[in-house]
């Protein structure tokens, strides 16, 4: 199928989300602010849960709210990400497939992204992600050559730096928002920090 680009902002927030809850399975939604057609550009992500991923009510609630926010901000939901609590197992769970299916109903070229917990150290050279796309009603591995992360070294450096300085504690996922509704699940503060650290040359923040 088509190409998928993953922006610095999306990657860093996913990374920080998994670092904030290292003992839990976490998930979230992948968003795009680009128009449909051509490559899928994942420009942002919304971290959702770190507990009880398979349960329906909060997931439904989050999907609805993110949908509304996307409509208000000219974005769309183009995928789903998950990191399993068991770092050595990065295969999609039934609940991951279910949610990804739902997203694919609205967006044909949806992607399912699994974070590989065993490859997330700063020494690992390649992005710790495994991506799936929908073909014949099944989720199949995407060809690695169709996945692009521009300026990967810089992105990885930003992610590590923010982890070192404890910025992952600033990340708010939907679960966290429900614990304290004054917290912002769109993570504007974190987005600003990421933008600051990115070089001006990096166009797809």
């Amino acid at each position, binding site marked *: 199928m088509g190409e998928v680009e993953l922006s610095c902002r999306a990657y860093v927030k996913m990374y920080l989300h998994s670092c904030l809850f290292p003992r839990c399975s976490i998930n979230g939604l992948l968003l795009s602010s680009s128009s449909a057609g051509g490559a899928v550009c994942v420009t942002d992500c919304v971290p959702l849960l770190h507990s009880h991923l398979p*349960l329906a*009510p*909060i997931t*439904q609630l989050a999907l609805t*709210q993110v949908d509304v926010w996307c409509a208000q*901000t000219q974005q769309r939901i183009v995928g789903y990400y998950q990191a399993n609590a068991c770092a050595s197992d990065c295969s999609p769970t039934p609940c991951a497939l279910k949610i990804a299916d739902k997203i694919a109903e609205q967006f044909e070229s949806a992607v399912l992204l699994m974070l590989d917990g065993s490859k997330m150290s700063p020494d690992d050279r390649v992005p710790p992600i495994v991506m799936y796309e929908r073909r014949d009603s099944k989720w199949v591995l995407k060809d690695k050559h169709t996945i692009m992360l521009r300026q990967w070294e810089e992105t990885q450096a930003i992610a590590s730096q923010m982890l070192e300085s404890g910025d992952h504690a600033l990340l708010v996922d939907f679960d966290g*928002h*429900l614990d304290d*509704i004054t917290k*912002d699940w769109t993570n504007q503060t974190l987005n600003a920090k990421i933008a600051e650290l990115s070089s001006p040359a990096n166009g797809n923040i």
Partner: protein
Amino acid sequence: MASLSEMYDVGWEEMRDKLRKWREDNCRNSEQIVDVGEELISEHASKLGDDVWIIYEQVMIAALDCSRDDLALTCLQELRKQFPDSHRVKRLTGMRLEALERYDEANKHYDAILQEDPTNTAARKRKISILRAQGKSTEAIRELNEYLEQFVGDQEAWHELSELYINEHDYGKAAFCLEELMMTNPHNHLYCEQYAEVKYTQGGMENLELARKYFAQALRLNNRNMRALFGLYMSASHIAASPKVSAKVKKDNIKYAAWAAAQINRAYKLAGRGNKENKCSIKAVEEMLESMQITMS
């Protein structure tokens, strides 16, 4: 690098008291415990009296959680010296092996404890944790069920089992575990709310109605539980929108949903006061409530 006590101007007594509070509340803030505990035991161990041993244990477990094997080993060695034959310390040795992913050795360790003391619940639970860490959910569930037949009052075990069942999508059995927990902890709003979520997930009219009732119950126990409030709104809305319900049921559920919506709006308005950050959340919630109203009528 400045010590914690220099940075935050705290004395060793405050650090010791903090650690005690975290013990009592059973917090898993391992990074903090390591920071505070490491400094406390390296600089002030002599002042701690008999507290020092329980602090060694607490810091050791936190160190394992943060992959600080050096610190964990130091604590463990002190404990071994002081309590050479203790099963409690042997369990800590086993936990260190688990952290190093030497599961076979860890299991042998726990088996040795159980040989000497078949009632040692800590060792049994560690063995089940190993199964969980290895991804062997079916075996973990089986062992945990056997454990609970003997130790039917172990709340922690019931909750662990409910989590395992939820991950396996076995919602009926998860509900059963949560029912046990609700019976023994009738004032715990979290169990009510989790039970309601499981029922909602199971689906079907009967389960939706149960979900709504238990979301309501959770709110009675804690009227700030946002998950319960949203859950009440969503379950009532779905019931009201169903073509299969009687006019009375529909009317009642519209009332419940309207009440919940008003509470949600109020909560978000309060949260939004003087707070620029969550403007997006407020707008999203308002629109969501509006759009669901349309589907109900």
